[in-house]
């Protein structure tokens, strides 16, 4: 039987416009060939910039921005879609191939009801009558586990949660009974506990409708749960292509091996030590609300160690950081830092309080002034706290750059000329420049590719050993926690539900929430999803 989709020697180019240089063509995807049979799932995996989304969209002959399909063939249902005109492509898109975007929250039109959007293609392509399409949408809502499937479609996108929107987007993709669905990182933006449910719903929907799929992700453990075959990509080129079992258990290429073994940093927990930061019974709420976002939070962070604060979005992790930094004065409780009481409000803190407590953020991009060079960015705290200038400042900046393993040649660059990982390193150097006792790291690796994130974690651990700096490490990723923490605080709805040394927190018996959180982290083996779901069903049956 012929394959549903066959991509042969695909080549995709775009024109880049580097500042101050003439525009030039860059090759995004080079000589990639894959095929997907009816009802099968192909996983596309790689770092950002590997060309996985670009390849995925090429199955609809769509190029984002100025992206051009310049070579090869894309054969769908027996014909090369590269040669089809705009009208032909419109007939194909949304009918034979549909698309599920990474951020459903942005991909749904905020001005229209969900039902209108879900059945839109089914109607515009004349596939079904409205009543039939609505009935199918309701059926899909139910299948995907959405609450009140009958009335769910009457809502607007802002009225439902991120996980629900992602399922609604899957329903939208499945509604016109396509032959192929492209899932572009459908669970990446979700919380780990939500991710599992959505992943399971997607897998079941794929299975029940018999649709073929391209599943794009940077998380090998996730794709291992749903794919039949996997194509590993790097910088637009094929690294390895084979059945999922072989890729996971017997990878042939070094790069694939690195992906499989990522998140295996071994970090020995340090012995107990006196606390540099001590948060006692802190309660806080935002101005103009009558809801405590932090409730009676008590944690200690020993000097030179790492306290990981874990929880889902909305659990109060970042709010805790805001309370500690003085951006959100607590209504109750006290914070002690380096042996002295910290004032709740930022304005009343001394310069030393400010200096010894630094922050690194999730989005390195937005945390740096794009019009300042790396030297200026890192030099700023040197000027501000130590009054350094001229040659001395430049020398110190270079020392810091050496410490973050970036070396020469970066000091006069602008942030736009750095990669994602390098930007985050510069932010680390800027925090270090103040010679802090504590750095608050707010989801610092969440926006990075796994291998790059690994590098950042290793760097942070090295720096901690050299500088004896403590980290308050906020994350939703438990694998990261295992790699870096000495102590762990699990937060849920503004409260610390579990707190202690890493070993204690990660050793059973667990409380319900920690159990849910831990069991939701995808594991790099086949059949994990099914086991996990069965385990949960048994539990809920037992309750």
């Amino acid at each position: 039987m012929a394959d549903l989709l066959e991509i042969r020697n695909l080549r995709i180019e775009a024109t880049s416009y580097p500042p101050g240089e003439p525009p030039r063509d860059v090759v995004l995807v080079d000589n990639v060939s894959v095929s997907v049979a009816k009802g099968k799932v192909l996983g596309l995996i790689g770092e950002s910039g590997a060309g996985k989304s670009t390849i995925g969209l090429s199955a609809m002959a769509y190029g984002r921005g100025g992206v051009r399909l310049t070579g090869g063939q894309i054969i769908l249902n027996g014909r090369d879609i590269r040669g089809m005109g705009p009208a032909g492509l419109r007939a194909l898109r949304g009918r034979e191939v549909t698309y599920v975007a990474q951020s459903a929250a942005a991909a749904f039109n905020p001005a229209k009801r969900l039902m209108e959007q879900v059945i839109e293609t089914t109607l515009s392509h004349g596939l079904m009558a409205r009543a039939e399409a609505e009935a199918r949408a309701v059926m899909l809502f139910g299948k995907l586990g959405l609450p009140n499937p009958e009335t769910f479609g009457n809502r607007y996108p802002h009225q439902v949660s991120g996980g629900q929107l992602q399922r609604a987007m899957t329903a939208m993709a499945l509604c016109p009974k396509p032959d192929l669905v492209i899932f572009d990182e459908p669970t990446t933006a979700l919380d780990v506990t939500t991710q599992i449910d959505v992943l399971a719903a997607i897998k079941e929907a794929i299975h029940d409708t018999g649709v073929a799929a391209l599943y794009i992700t940077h998380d090998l453990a996730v794709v291992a749960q749903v794919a039949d075959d996997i194509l590993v990509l790097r910088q637009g080129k094929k690294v390895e292509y084979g059945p999922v079992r072989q890729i996971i258990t017997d990878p042939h290429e070094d790069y694939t091996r690195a992906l499989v073994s990522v998140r295996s940093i071994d970090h020995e927990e340090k012995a107990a030590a006196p606390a540099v930061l001590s948060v006692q019974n802190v309660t806080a709420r935002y101005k103009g609300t009558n809801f405590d976002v932090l409730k009676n939070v008590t944690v200690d962070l020993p000097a030179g160690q790492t306290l990981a604060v874990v929880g889902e979005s909305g659990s109060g992790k970042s709010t805790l950081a805001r309370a500690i930094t003085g951006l959100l004065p607590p209504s109750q409780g006290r914070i002690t830092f380096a042996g002295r009481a910290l004032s709740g409000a930022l304005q009343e803190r001394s310069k030393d309080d400010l200096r010894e407590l630094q922050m690194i953020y999730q989005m390195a991009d937005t945390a740096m002034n794009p019009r300042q060079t790396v030297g200026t960015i890192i030099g700023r705290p040197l000027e501000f706290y130590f009054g350094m200038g001229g040659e001395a400042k430049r020398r110190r900046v270079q020392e810091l750059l050496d410490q973050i393993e970036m070396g020469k040649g970066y000091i006069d660059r602008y942030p736009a000329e750095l990669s994602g990982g390098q930007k985050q390193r510069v932010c680390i150097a800027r925090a270090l420049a103040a010679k802090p006792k504590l750095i608050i790291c707010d989801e610092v690796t969440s926006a990075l590719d796994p291998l790059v994130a690994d590098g950042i974690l290793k760097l942070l651990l090295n720096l901690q050993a050299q500088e004896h700096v403590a980290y308050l490490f906020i994350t939703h990723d438990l694998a990261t926690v295992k790699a870096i923490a000495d102590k762990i605080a699990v937060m849920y709805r503004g409260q610390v539900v579990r707190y202690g040394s890493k070993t204690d927190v990660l050793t059973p018996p667990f409380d319900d929430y920690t159990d849910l959180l831990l069991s939701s982290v995808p594991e790099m083996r086949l059949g994990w999803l099914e086991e996990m779901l069965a385990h949960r069903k048994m539990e809920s049956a037992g309750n």
Partner: protein
Amino acid sequence: MHPILKLVAQRIALGLLLLLAVSLLIFLGTEALPGDVAQAILGQSATPEALANLRESLGLNRPAYVRYFDWLGGILTGDFGVALTNGQDIGQAIGQRLGNTLFLAACAAVISVPLAILLGLIAARYNGRWPDKVISGVTLSTISLPEFVAAYFVIFLLTQVFPIFQPVAMVFPGMGFWERLQAVALPVIVLVLVVLAHMMRMTRAAILNVMQSAYIETAELKGLSPMRVIWQHAFPNAIAPIVSVVVLNLAYLVVGVVVVEVVFGYNALGQYLVDHVAKRDLPVVQAVGLIFAAVYIGLNILADVIGIVSNPRLRHPK
């Protein structure tokens, strides 16, 4: 109470407050002018006694705040006072002219707003291609022409070259609706040319801004036609900025068209105001100023309300 009603009530209350502030400003402004009404009536050669007598009889000797509240109270009960120059009741004189002003503005709006939005959508659809360039170029050149030049050009073209219309837009009470429409045809054409560009460019810019959104890509990947993507998916999210520019232009059609009125001899509020400014007839200037301010504020409240209602997050809270 539904949050939308609350927001709308807030906007209206704020508008009324603003109008009150404007009335104060108008009063203080005319108060600050050198000389007063008595001086204006009697002229430079008036004797001090005559001035004092007239002030006494007009009540100008009373403190300013008493006269302000007197004036304000009059307006609230529909009494705008009497014009100094001819002793006419201002309310009556304004009433008819305001009708003419609104008629002209409404005719121009009915044509220009849909046309501007349609052209804006087409320009956005063919962004950077020839239809976009033609639309942008033509509207830009019509807005660049001073109104009176455009007016004379239109008169020349449509009464001399192609004698379709009469050059003067005379309207009088008792005229039939159809005759009225014919009479205002030329000024309407000129006004449409003047206001088209601004609204069209804003529509185009607002649509193009929304076209960057992820949900537009979703719509394109659904295989919808480009015009459907723009109309169904981009336009509903671009309403607020478009409406705010539309009402600015509507307000201009009401308060700013004196040049066109003069050129076509159209008897409306703008001309009335300018005449009485020249004659230093302050009660008329104050009254018309207040009406113009009310129109401006009212239309902007309308824009706010439409902006609020077009936002599903406010219309359908969680």
